[in-house]
């Protein structure tokens, strides 16, 4: 009797939990589509009626508030986002993966724990603080070191973004390396592999999906970051000719200008079109990653 009641309650609890987990899974999809729908809807009237897509993507002139002639060209902003992100990745991927390999394979005990704690601290610094460091500390240093006329530029933003992406790349990358079974390492060592051969020939190929995920999460962080790049890149509409030129990114433009726009006017809608472009970039990055990972898997199978 008692047993059957307990069993019934247990079954009830199980079905409730099942429903909860099911809903949680679907809610993620719902939220993503909901946000995408909202952003596209806000920008849609402008996209359909006013926007010249050719001008939008090929003109560097972003003058949404001009009294003479409004111009909505995001070419310079795209160039800004891409240049800062590319530089950040160039710096953070080797550094992040190197740190992940060191933490996972070369150290243990107190060193390992303290390194992980410090990296977590690095990840906990708010982006406004990073921006402030870029603005007040890095700016004079870059002027002094490079002779550039101003130190808030692609280099500054790239370094700041790299420092912000490194903790993510390290922690995800370290998990991926940790997931490689010890039998792989033992087998490699038994065959007489040096440490370098073990890492380069065994661990990196075995963990490449996880490492790729680490890098892409880092890219996502870099593209989506707003406050720090707003302060560190100089917020200047121009196509950079080198890493010492100030630029402006897509995210910073939205952050800086959305507050003054009135709902429904073309400037407001144009900013939402930029938001759509950002969503599409993020989607492209994710889909590419997915395809690359799948490509690696099918290669392994054949």
């Amino acid at each position, binding site marked *: 009797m008692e047993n059957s009641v307990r069993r019934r309650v247990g079954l009830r609890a199980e079905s409730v939990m099942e429903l909860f987990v099911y809903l949680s899974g679907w809610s993620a999809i719902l939220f993503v589509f909901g946000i995408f729908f909202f952003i596209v809807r806000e920008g849609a009237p402008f996209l359909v009626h006013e926007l010249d897509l050719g001008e939008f993507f090929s003109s560097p002139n972003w003058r949404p*508030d001009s009294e003479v002639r409004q111009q909505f060209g995001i070419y310079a902003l795209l160039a800004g986002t891409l240049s800062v992100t590319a530089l950040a990745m160039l710096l953070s991927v080797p550094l992040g993966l190197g740190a992940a390999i060191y933490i996972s394979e070369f150290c243990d005990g107190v060193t390992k724990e303290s390194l992980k704690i410090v990296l977590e601290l690095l990840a906990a610094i708010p982006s406004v603080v990073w921006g402030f460091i870029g603005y007040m500390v890095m700016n004079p240093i870059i002027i002094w070191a490079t002779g550039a*006329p*101003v130190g808030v530029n692609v280099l500054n933003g790239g370094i700041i973004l790299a420092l912000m992406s490194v903790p993510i790349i390290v922690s995800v990358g370290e998990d991926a390396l940790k997931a490689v079974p010890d039998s792989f390492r033992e087998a490699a060592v038994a065959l007489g592999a040096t440490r370098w051969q073990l890492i380069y020939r065994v661990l990196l190929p075995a963990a490449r999906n996880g490492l790729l995920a680490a890098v892409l999460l880092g890219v996502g962080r870099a593209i989506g970051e707003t406050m720090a790049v707003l302060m560190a890149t100089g917020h*200047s509409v121009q196509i950079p000719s080198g890493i010492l030129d100030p630029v402006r990114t897509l995210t910073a433009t939205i952050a*800086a200008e959305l507050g*003054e726009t009135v709902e429904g006017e073309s400037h407001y809608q144009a900013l939402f079109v930029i938001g759509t472009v950002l969503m599409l970039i993020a989607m492209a990055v994710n889909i590419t990653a997915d395809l690359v990972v799948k490509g690696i898997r099918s290669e392994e199978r054949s």
Partner: protein
Amino acid sequence: MISPHRLHLTPIAVLVGLSTSGCGGAGDEGGHAPESPAESNIIRVTGSDTMVNLAQAWAEDYQGDHPEISIQVAGGGSGVGIAGLIDGIVDMANASRKMKSTELKRAEQALGMSAVEHVVGLDALAVYVHKDNPLESIAIPELAEIYGEGGETTLWAQIGGSSAACSRDEIVRISRQNNSGTYVYFRRAVLGAGREYKLGSIDQSGSKDVVALVSKTPCAIGYSGMAYATPEVKSLPVAAEKGAEAITPTTETAASGDYPISRPLLIYTAGEPTGAIRDYLDWIYSPAGQRIVAEIGYVPIKAVE
């Protein structure tokens, strides 16, 4: 700049100030008096970054005497305050530029009454360079050639401002984001009607940020309210024309109109204000309120006794 006797204020002066109407605005009320949210004793003030220090000082002082009133002050830029007024989420919009005709039209449609302008002070827009810059003065046409689209001035040597600290001699233009009233005012007053800014300037979000960046950048030039001057930057005397006498921005030269780039500091309300907002605005025009304008470093609109 402020003589000590100005700082002594008797309660009577405050009362006198309160009883006088401080109407500085044009435009009719557009129908019956609005039921303003001021009845709830919360006054929401948003807008011009130039005026945010002033608005905060006003609010603190006023709340000290009127504990029943709560005044919420936020910056963000003139455009942000005006957009908030149109959307009905702001009671008083601080602005360092006049509302555009499109904005006035939208306000009329959204609020059912016109936005009313109140001039509460004057500000001289100072031109800042790094303290090591040897330049002694600058003329408006020179500024226009530096900042304006198609302008040819890109090197400090062209206007005699080269210094060892700025090794590449390139002029770094520091400007404001386009939600700033200062940005809009500078465009009209310095570049002239119909001329746009040259792209590629470094656009800062606040008045203070412009001065901070100029102080750290030997090649830089920037513009910001004169109240934001610090010892690390040099505020250049400005001449209206090349060869004309260059005027140092001070409260006196701004008030007399000798300084060529000074502008009114404005507060916009939805219709003629009533209730708590009216009282607050009257107090701003009183000697107590105008004394704070001078203390912050701007020019009072009414002579402070």
